[in-house]
C-alpha cells in the first residue's frame, strides 16, 4: 500500500473541539444549541445513526432530543410537528431520520423545515445557496467529503476533480462546492460511457454510488486523492457482514496518494459537520432574533 490513509476520526475530533468551543460561547449567551431528531415507525434501521448523533452531540455540547412517532402518523400531522419546532425558539435544528414509511415523502418534510433550522442542509434554499456559492448550512455528507479533501496539501484552485454519482444530496452538492473552490469538476453517473476516462484524468475522485468495488486502482491517476463516500454492507469470508465503501480498497490504495477508509473516513466527519451546522444554525437564529427584536446584547 502506498497511499496515505486519511483518518476521518481524527479530523472529526478536531472539528468537534472547535464546535464545542463555539457551542459553549453560545450557551453563555443563553443560546445552547439544541437539536430535535424525528424518526417514524420502526426505529431499528435508524437507531445506529441516532445513537451516533446523540453521542456526538453530547461531545460537542449540543443538546439532543430523539423523538419517535408511530408508523401511522400522517404527512399533515408530521408537517404540523415540524411547524411547531420551527416556531419554538428553544429548538435550533431539526433532523429527519430516514428511512421514512412509504406514505411520508421525505422531500415534503425537508421543505417544511425552516431554512434557518435546516441543519441537514436538505431544504431547496440550502441547496440553492450552495449552487450560488454561499455556504450557510450545507448537506452534511457532501460538506464532510469536501472538508476532508481540504485537509490534504492540494491546491483546490484548478484541481481536476471527478465526482462519481450525481445524487442530489451528495454528488451534486460536492460538484458545486468544489466548483466554488475553483476546481474543474466532472460529474459521472450510471449513464457515463467510460468512467475510467474521467476518473483517470482527476487529481481527486469522490465516489458516492453505493456499489462496492466500483472504483479500482487502474481507474485512478497515480497519487490522486480518493474520497470514498459509499457505505455498503457485504458478507465477509467468515459469513459475517462487514462495511465497505464504493472503492476496491486494496487496489486503490496501491495507486492513490491518499485514501479514506470505510468505516472511519467520511462517516465520522459527517456527524461532526452536523454538529457544526447545529452551532451555525443557532448563531444564525440568534442574529436573526436580535435583528428582529433589536434586543440589547
Amino acid at each position, binding site marked *: 500500500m502506498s497511499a496515505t490513509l486519511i483518518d476521518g476520526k481524527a479530523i472529526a475530533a478536531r472539528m468537534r473541539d472547535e464546535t464545542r468551543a463555539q457551542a459553549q460561547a453560545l450557551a453563555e449567551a443563553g443560546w445552547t444549541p439544541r437539536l430535535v431528531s424525528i424518526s417514524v415507525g420502526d426505529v431499528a434501521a435508524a437507531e445506529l445513526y441516532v445513537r451516533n448523533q446523540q453521542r456526538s452531540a453530547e461531545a460537542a455540547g449540543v443538546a439532543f432530543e430523539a423523538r419517535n412517532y408511530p408508523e401511522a402518523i400522517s404527512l399533515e400531522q408530521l408537517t404540523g410537528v415540524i411547524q411547531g419546532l420551527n416556531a419554538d425558539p428553544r429548538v435550533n435544528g431539526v433532523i429527519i431520520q430516514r428511512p421514512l414509511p412509504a406514505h411520508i415523502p421525505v422531500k415534503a418534510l425537508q421543505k417544511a423545515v425552516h431554512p434557518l433550522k435546516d441543519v441537514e442542509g436538505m431544504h*431547496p*434554499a440550502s441547496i440553492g445557496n450552495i449552487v450560488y456559492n454561499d455556504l450557510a448550512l450545507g448537506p452534511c455528507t457532501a460538506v464532510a467529503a469536501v472538508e476532508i479533501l481540504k485537509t490534504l496539501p492540494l491546491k483546490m484552485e484548478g484541481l481536476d476533480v471527478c465526482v462519481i454519482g450525481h445524487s442530489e444530496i451528495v454528488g451534486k452538492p460536492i460538484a458545486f462546492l468544489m466548483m466554488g473552490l475553483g476546481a474543474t469538476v466532472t460529474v*459521472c453517473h450510471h*449513464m457515463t*460511457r467510460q468512467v475510467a476516462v474521467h476518473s483517470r484524468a482527476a487529481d481527486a475522485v469522490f465516489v458516492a454510488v453505493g456499489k462496492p468495488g466500483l472504483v479500482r486502482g487502474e481507474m485512478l491517476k497515480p497519487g490522486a486523492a480518493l474520497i470514498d463516500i459509499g457505505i455498503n454492507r457485504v458478507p465477509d469470508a467468515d459469513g459475517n457482514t462487514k462495511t465497505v465503501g464504493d472503492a476496491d480498497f486494496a487496489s486503490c490504495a496501491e495507486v492513490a496518494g491518499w485514501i479514506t477508509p470505510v468505516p472511519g473516513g467520511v462517516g465520522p466527519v459527517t456527524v461532526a459537520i452536523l454538529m457544526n451546522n447545529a452551532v451555525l444554525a443557532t448563531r444564525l437564529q440568534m442574529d436573526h432574533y436580535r435583528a428582529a427584536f433589536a434586543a440589547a446584547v
Partner: protein
Amino acid sequence: MTAKVIDGKAFAANVRAQVAAHVAKLKDGKGIQPGLAVVLVGEDPASQVYVRNKHASTIEVGMASFEHRLPATTGEAELLALIDQLNADPKVHGILVQLPLPSHLNSELVINRIEPAKDVDGFHISNVGLLGTGQKSMVPCTPLGCLMMLRDHHGSLSGLNAVVVGRSNIVGKPMAQLLLGDSCTVTIAHSRTKDLAEVCKRADILVAAVGRPEMITGDMVRPGATVIDVGINRIERDGKAKLVGDVHYESAAAVAGAITPVPGGVGPMTIACLLANTLTACCRANGLEEPKGLTA
C-alpha cells in the same frame, strides 16, 4: 465549413408559435390568459430596449403584459411592496425584475421576494435549489433555450460528454444541472481550469458561456461536436462594431458537427423561453397539465 448551423431565430419562432397556440387554447377552453409582469427601475438604455422587446413578444403570443416602470430613485420598501402586490395578483403568472437594478437596491433581496412559482427568470434561491435537487422549478431562460436546441439536434443526450465553459449563476451552473438531468457526463470548466483545450476536446457537447470574445477556437473542438455559443460580445474590428460570441466561429465551424451562430443562435431563444416559462407557470397555477416540450 462542415458544421450544420443551428438557426436560433427559426427555432425561437417555432417555440413562440407553440406558446401562442397553447395560449389560444387556454383562452378559448378555460378563459385563462397567462400574464407576465415586467418591472424596470431606472433609465438604463439597454434595459429599456429589453423591456420593450419583452412587452412586444408577450403581446404577440396573446399573453397579458404588465409593465411597471419606476424611477431610479425608487426605494427598497416601495419596490418590495410592488413585488408583494404582483405576487398576490391572480392575473400575473410570471414576474420579471429587469437586472441590473440601481446600485442602492439589493437585487438578491428583491429577486428572493418574488413568489418562486412566479419567478420566470428562475433566479429565486428556492428555484435554484429545486433545480439542484431535481424537483419541479422555474428554469433560467437562456440555459433552457440551449437545452431545447440540444434536444432537438440530438434527440437523446444520455451518455454524451458535455463541457460547460463558465460557471455563472445565470448560465453555466443551471446549464450543468440541466445537462446532468438529461444524463450527460458533465464537466464545468472556467477561468481556473488548467488545460482548457484538453478539457474542451473531450466534449460531444460544448457550451461556451464565459463572456470572452472568440476564446474557444477550432483546435479546442472535437470533430463532430455540437457547439452552443452563449456569449454576446461587442468588439471593434476594422473600425466597425461587431457582435461575436465566445467561440471563434470560422475555425470552430470547420470542425464542429453543429454550431450556433452569434447573433441568431442562442440569443433569440431567451425571450422565447421567458414566454414558455410564463405559460408553464400559468398552467401550474391553474392545476393544468404543463405544455410538452417547453420545459426542462
